[in-house]
């Protein structure tokens, strides 16, 4: 049983996550609880209070007591607590300590001092339960994000804790792997474990959660059984800043002005060694369109994006507009990718320097004026002197967009621009994308977010095994295909 008795916690450092105030909460054994709310509402803080990372690792001031199975977390060392509470985090990249999968699953068991035979038994048991036997004895760096996340779940499960805490576990997963994650949680539920999940994506949890807790500004606003929560309609959920409970219905598609000409992709070919990774003989999209690139993880979406941007030097093929034909080398000057981890592409010491970096640098005054205009259009002008790294995720993304506008890029690729974002932040991204499209830029969006698609995409490329399975606009047939694709998770 988990008990919060009048818990108030504030972070010492300038964490993005907000503190929590006057929480009183009892979670009985075997309950599956969904924590939801806008970014920074304090749901991550609750997960950290349960697994003991606050206040021991993320320091701050804690009043009140958190009791796990009758033990005060403040008086229990993390090492002891880890036997009762297992944690899975958002980023699959940064939660494994070993380089090989088997070692990783064994890691927690070794730390709590189990004998070798017992560890072997448990590895066999959890990999059987989670159906990941074939992932044993592999290099973790060669696995996909979804597979890494399954290994993380297995590693925690092998320690056989009573309580599982998951902090946005689906953020980096695609539709198919979310379905797998759902199965894992179902398994834990069937075993009678207590599961606490902080999430933005709600739909996959609707038939496994027992209870939904909605937080706002560090306080519990609603605490409902899931049957009541499911009665809320989309308008109410959106007003609460939450995502829809259904993947999306694609009924009201806003028309987005697409440009006039066509952009044509010809003979895109790329292979890793002898393995053909991409083969697209011919594909055209309307200029100025917002093109959604869909497909499962590993289908070749990222490879396509990298080839499009000219980042794969050995890729063959051209991108043709009405008046020119761009090879790999020319494309790198005309295309820009806003990466999923936007931290990789911010280089300078201030937001305005970041924008100026991409400008010609001949007329400094003129450049500064133009840079201010760009920043203003992206609502970033007030942050212009700040260090880019001090901004929030969404602001950083806008700075990256700004730098692309500054260097006159015409083709912009976005890699998962809304992963892990709440409803309002997703709308903000959709607005930015539409604005870029109105400026005449052609956008390619790799996404697993049906709501983003419904808000702004007006053309689609569906990639399967490095080939385009289909492409086109919002025809009835495509609408059905997209709905089917996303309904897979339910």
């Amino acid at each position, binding site marked *: 049983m988990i008990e919060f008795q009048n818990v108030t916690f504030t972070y010492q450092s300038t964490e993005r996550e907000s503190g929590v105030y006057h929480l009183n909460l009892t979670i009985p054994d075997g309950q599956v609880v969904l924590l939801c709310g806008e970014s920074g509402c304090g749901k991550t803080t609750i997960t950290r209070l349960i697994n003991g990372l606050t206040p021991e690792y993320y320091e701050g001031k804690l009043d009140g007591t958190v009791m796990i199975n009758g033990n005060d977390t403040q008086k229990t060392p993390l090492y002891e607590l880890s036997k009762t509470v297992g*944690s899975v985090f958002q980023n699959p990249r940064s939660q494994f300590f*070993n*380089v090989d999968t088997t070692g990783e699953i064994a890691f927690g*068991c070794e730390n709590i001092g189990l004998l070798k035979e017992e560890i072997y038994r448990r590895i066999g048991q959890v990999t059987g339960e989670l159906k990941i036997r074939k992932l044993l004895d592999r290099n973790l760096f060669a696995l996909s994000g979804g597979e890494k996340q399954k290994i993380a779940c297995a590693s925690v499960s092998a320690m056989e804790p009573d309580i599982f805490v998951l902090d946005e576990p689906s953020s980096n997963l695609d539709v198919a792997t979310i379905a797998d994650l759902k199965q894992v949680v179902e398994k834990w539920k069937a075993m009678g474990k207590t599961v606490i999940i902080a999430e933005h994506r709600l739909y996959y949890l609707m038939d496994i959660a027992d209870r939904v807790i909605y937080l706002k500004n560090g306080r519990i606003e609603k605490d409902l059984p899931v049957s009541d929560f499911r009665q809320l309609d989309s308008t109410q959920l959106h007003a609460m800043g939450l995502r829809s409970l259904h993947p999306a219905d694609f009924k009201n598609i806003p028309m987005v002005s697409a440009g006039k000409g066509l952009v044509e992709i010809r003979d895109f070919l790329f292979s890793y060694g002898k393995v053909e990774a991409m083969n697209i003989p011919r594909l055209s999209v309307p200029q100025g369109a917002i093109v959604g690139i869909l497909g499962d993880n590993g289908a070749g979406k990222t490879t396509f994006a990298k080839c499009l941007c000219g980042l794969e030097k050995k890729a063959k093929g051209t991108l043709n507009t009405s008046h020119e034909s761009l090879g790999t080398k020319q494309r790198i000057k005309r295309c820009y990718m806003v*990466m999923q981890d936007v931290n990789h592409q911010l280089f300078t010491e201030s937001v305005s320097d970041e924008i100026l970096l991409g400008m010609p640098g001949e007329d400094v005054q003129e450049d500064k004026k133009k840079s201010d205009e760009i920043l203003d259009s992206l609502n970033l002008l007030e942050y212009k002197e700040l260090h880019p790294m001090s901004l929030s995720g969404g602001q950083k993304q806008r700075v990256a967009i700004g730098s692309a506008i500054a260097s006159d890029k015409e083709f912009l690729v976005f890699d998962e621009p809304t992963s892990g974002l709440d409803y309002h932040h997703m709308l903000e991204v959709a607005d930015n994308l539409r604005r870029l499209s109105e400026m005449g830029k052609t956008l390619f969006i790799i996404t697993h977010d049906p709501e983003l698609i419904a808000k702004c995409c007006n053309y689609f490329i569906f990639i399967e095994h490095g080939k385009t399975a289909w492409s086109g606009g919002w025809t009835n047939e495509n609408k059905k295909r997209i709905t089917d694709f996303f309904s897979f998770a339910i």
Partner: protein
Amino acid sequence: MERYEAYQPPDKKGFYLDPRTKVLFMAFVTTLMFFVYENLAMDAVVAVIPLTLLLINRQVRTALIYGGLFALAIVAKLTQGMYVLPSVLNMISVLLVAMVIRLFPIFMLGYYIIESTSTDEFVAAMEKWHIPESFIIPITVVFRFIPTLGEESAAITDAMRMREIQFGTKKFWQNPTALLEYRVIPLMMSVVKIGDELSAAALTRGLGGLKHRTSIAAIGFTAYDLIIALLSAGLLVWSIL
């Protein structure tokens, strides 16, 4: 509830060295290269060892590059007296040749060790030596970070190319040192972030109570370790003679 069969570790086939042998051998080669001068035959023998180990570990590309560099260095060394280079070039050449011949075997051996040893094996081996945990944990983190650094660095290279921040452009000549800054700062940022999340994840999995830690790593000396030991003894005798 369903029961599943226990995990069976794959049989270790073929070449395998105990992590302790690797560490000791590395220390031995480093000392040897430090004390032995002007013995090309021995340099060649010492170069062949990491080369063989790299090949056994299927790091073919690295082995080829290293082998090629070593051959070039030997050629440069043997033809040294046949032509006269301007003094600056000569200095650079002598320096490079010495680096390839004397330092690279050590680097390559280190690279082999990192690529061929799993974190778990390494921790188990160090615990057998009773090395304190405050020393073991940072080293294992380094093991874990090397492939991560590679991944992050590749992403940053892509980002830089799209912004045309690269060697030789007009912007580059205006401020050449900025290039280094642009590469290092995002890399540091992501390493710090990953390190932070990694520590949190490791703590929730019970790392920190290392006193009672067990390990599934099967370590132990085999005939291959004996080969390395004999090889070292041979080299030692040769260097003294």
